[in-house]
């Protein structure tokens, strides 16, 4: 089979070149750590006059750009550690990033709940612990398709990362202690639910091959952010039916009840058209109206991608006043500038 067509240099260099390009795209607001694929906010919080700030470290495998690396900046993460494509970063890089951003108040890690990330971030935290740095974790487990609610720890992190990192960024900016920033971030994580669908696969640049095969008329419901299989593979129906099925999985899970207010994220997994996402949004809002759920804020576009996978995910974050405050706080980065 023909390699998937892309405009690349040597495929072994994609991650190194991507982080280089990301730093340049930040117009001086980030830098690359020496010897590691770690993108660090510049000036640092301390350099910008904010002493003793709780550090926020995010990261995971590459290939999902603009996340996580695009979320380093004011009101967001202090650093992002970038693994290889679809592979968690290594403990040494995580530890180095932790040391770089710690200013005495400890560091909060926010990352997706995958075996690889958990193991590597845990090892990184242990190495950082050797340097007397306190670390706490929030692992994003928003994908309702990954496991039933009773086994929430088996759920993986998908586009809900965006909201959790956004809120963590604001919390770490404003809270005095790591524990307080952790509490708010953990609440955001606990209130976030997502589900994705895909109609065609992405590919890993080094292999050049689609990571799965799907029939010409098939859709995968519950697709993971690396092309991991979802809950069902079926004939692709009209957009409204697809959305209805996704919403039926999302709404009862938390649950999102009548009278509650949410932030809504429709995330493009890669090659879907914005048109499809906007058409979905119509129906999502219809479903939310029916359920009596209000929308405080909508995000729609490419945030956590799976290379050129075609499909999208829907994320709902249930808000209270505290979460709303942190969600609406200003933020500036390559991938997310608001407020």
């Amino acid at each position: 089979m023909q390699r998937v067509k892309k405009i690349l240099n040597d495929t072994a260099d994609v991650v190194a070149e991507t982080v280089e390009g990301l730093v340049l795209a930040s117009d001086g607001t980030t830098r690359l750590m020496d010897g590691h694929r770690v993108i660090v906010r510049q000036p640092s919080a301390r350099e910008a006059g904010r002493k003793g700030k709780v550090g926020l470290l995010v990261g995971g495998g590459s290939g999902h750009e603009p996340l996580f690396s695009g979320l380093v900046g004011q009101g967001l993460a202090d650093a992002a550690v970038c693994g290889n494509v679809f592979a968690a970063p290594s403990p040494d890089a995580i530890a180095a990033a932790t040391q770089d951003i710690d200013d005495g108040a400890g560091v909060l890690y926010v990352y997706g709940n995958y075996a690889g990330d958990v193991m590597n971030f845990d090892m990184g935290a242990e190495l950082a612990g050797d340097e007397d740095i306190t670390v706490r974790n929030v692992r994003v487990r928003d994908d309702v398709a990954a496991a039933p609610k009773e086994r929430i720890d088996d759920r993986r992190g998908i586009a809900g990362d965006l909201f959790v990192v956004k809120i963590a960024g604001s919390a770490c900016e404003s809270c005095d202690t790591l524990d307080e920033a952790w509490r708010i971030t953990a609440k955001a994580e606990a209130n976030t639910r997502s589900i994705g669908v895909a109609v065609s696969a992405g590919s890993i640049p080094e292999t050049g091959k689609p990571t799965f095969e799907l029939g010409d008329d098939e859709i995968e419901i519950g697709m993971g952010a690396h092309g991991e299989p979802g809950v069902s593979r079926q004939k692709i129906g009209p957009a409204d039916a697809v959305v209805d099925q996704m919403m039926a999985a999302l709404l009862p899970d938390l649950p999102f009840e009548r009278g509650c207010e949410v932030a809504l994220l429709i995330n493009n997994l890669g090659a879907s058209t914005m048109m499809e996402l906007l058409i979905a949004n119509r129906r999502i809002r219809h479903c939310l109206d029916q359920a009596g759920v209000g929308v405080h804020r909508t995000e729609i576009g490419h945030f956590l991608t799976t290379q050129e996978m075609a499909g999208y995910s829907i994320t709902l974050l249930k808000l209270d006043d505290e979460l709303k405050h942190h969600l609406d706080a200003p933020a500036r980065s390559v991938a997310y500038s608001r407020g």
Partner: protein
Amino acid sequence: MADELDAVAVRAMLLQVCTRMIENTDRLTEADQAVGDGDHGIGMRRGFTAARDKLEALEPASVAEVFKTVGTAVMAQTGGASGAVFGTLYRAGATACGDHALDAATFLAFLEQGLAAVQKRGGAVPGAKTMIDALAPAAEAARAAQADGLAAMIRAAADAAQQGVQASRDMIATTGKARTLGERSLGHPDPGAISMQIQLAAMQDYVAGQRED
């Protein structure tokens, strides 16, 4: 028949492991495409290429140093779940070696301590469709072959790992990226288990080659 390997020989044995792992890139990637995210082969290639480069530059002072060199390189360069588990296996296994040459007892300790460390690190139990399903039977077979010397022990371990790979076909994944496949993971062996088996088979072949010398 070498029933004890010094650090230089262990280095040669692990270079053979690196070569085999690099050669199997496509097979491992395909296995991961079936049940995971399709990157296991390239991850292992990155890790074991780095390990090979480090080993080639190494003047090994001890067996422990050789294992640790591999573990550190794999952990730093592979990333993902497999970087953590194979990195942990070699690094934790290394601590089992002390200053000894590699003999049957040391190899058994390597496997058992490596296994324990991997289980502790990732929390996966046997039957969860991971590399543990090759490693655990290998360690068990090694213990049973304790009295038979290093070469026989490695052969027994490699054979058991091979059976573990086969057995993993009938397991439903409960960890890693194959987890959500549920029943759909049935019929496919675990990529990491295949890697474990390839590594033990490479060791076995090395030791067998040594013996014929």
